[in-house]
């Protein structure tokens, strides 16, 4: 099992993802520079967090034109699992691999804290090891996480079960108070129609081992390993 980790100029969670894949799960992992078009035989591709291209213009707006993104798009089209974390999620939105857009947080501030998330879709290659409806804790750290999309797109996402994670209270209740950034309908993560492309604002890579006080994020990566083994 090999993870490909895309590195844009300004990515800063690439090493975290590499650590999770290799040190915690014993998988292979390879960095893929944004100018490369070869995914080096990756079984799953991760777009890590950070500030690709300094987030100039809009977060993710310039990264989507990197040569590697065409390869990522065709990999996704063939059903390959793609995970976008935080800035990686923003890149997936700008690239049109997931629907919608990010706005600045409603509080106009960078928000960095632990949040509770409800797992609403356990059928993606990155969430299969979480029980559906379970509540997990993960950290967020972003300025533009206020997810939005036209109402009909939001309805389609809901109807097709494509909301993967939703901000919630610790007991799983979805409330406005538990929504850290104003995201439409409390959406923290979504997936593509086929489910193989997943984007989320929280950072599973930052909570994947007990040493960090929380290892609930590990299951996202472990799910991908399980999905690959089952193929």
């Amino acid at each position: 099992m090999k993870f490909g980790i895309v590195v844009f100029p300004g990515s800063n969670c690439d090493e975290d993802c590499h650590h999770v894949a290799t040190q915690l799960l014993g998988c292979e992992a390879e960095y893929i520079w944004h100018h490369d078009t070869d995914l080096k035989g990756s079984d799953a591709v991760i777009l890590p967090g950070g500030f690709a291209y300094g987030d100039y213009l809009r977060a993710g707006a310039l990264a989507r034109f990197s040569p590697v993104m065409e390869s990522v798009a065709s990999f996704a089209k063939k059903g390959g699992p793609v995970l976008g974390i935080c800035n990686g999620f923003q890149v997936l939105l700008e690239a049109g691999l997931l629907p919608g857009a990010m706005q600045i947080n409603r509080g106009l501030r960078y928000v960095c804290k632990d949040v509770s998330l409800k797992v609403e879709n356990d059928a993606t290659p990155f969430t299969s090891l979480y029980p559906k409806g379970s509540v997990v804790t993960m950290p967020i750290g972003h300025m533009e996480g206020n997810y939005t999309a036209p109402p009909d797109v939001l309805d389609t996402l809901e109807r097709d079960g494509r909301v993967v994670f939703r901000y919630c209270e610790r007991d799983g209740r979805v409330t406005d108070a538990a929504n850290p950034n104003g995201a439409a309908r409390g959406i923290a993560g979504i997936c593509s129609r086929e489910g193989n492309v997943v984007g989320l604002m929280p950072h599973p890579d930052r909570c994947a081992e007990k040493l960090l006080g929380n290892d609930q994020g590990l299951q996202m990566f472990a799910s991908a390993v399980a999905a690959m083994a089952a193929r």
Partner: protein
Amino acid sequence: MKVEVRVYPKEGVLDPQGKAIAAALGRLGHGTVRDVRAGKVFFIDVAGGDARAAEADAKKMAEELLANTVIEGYDVRVVS
């Protein structure tokens, strides 16, 4: 030729920056301010002398990159 592209939040899209600016203006005593929408302007210098072509090019630039048309509208003006 000089072309200006204005990019702004679409009508009906919540604009947290505009709301904050409106509130700040109110606090500064500008009681007449009812609403603010915050956008960006791009001043683009393009080669060639054909205004219509420059305008068409700028529209393409807005669609492809300058605006995220999910949440933003834009307009294009050839200045000179």
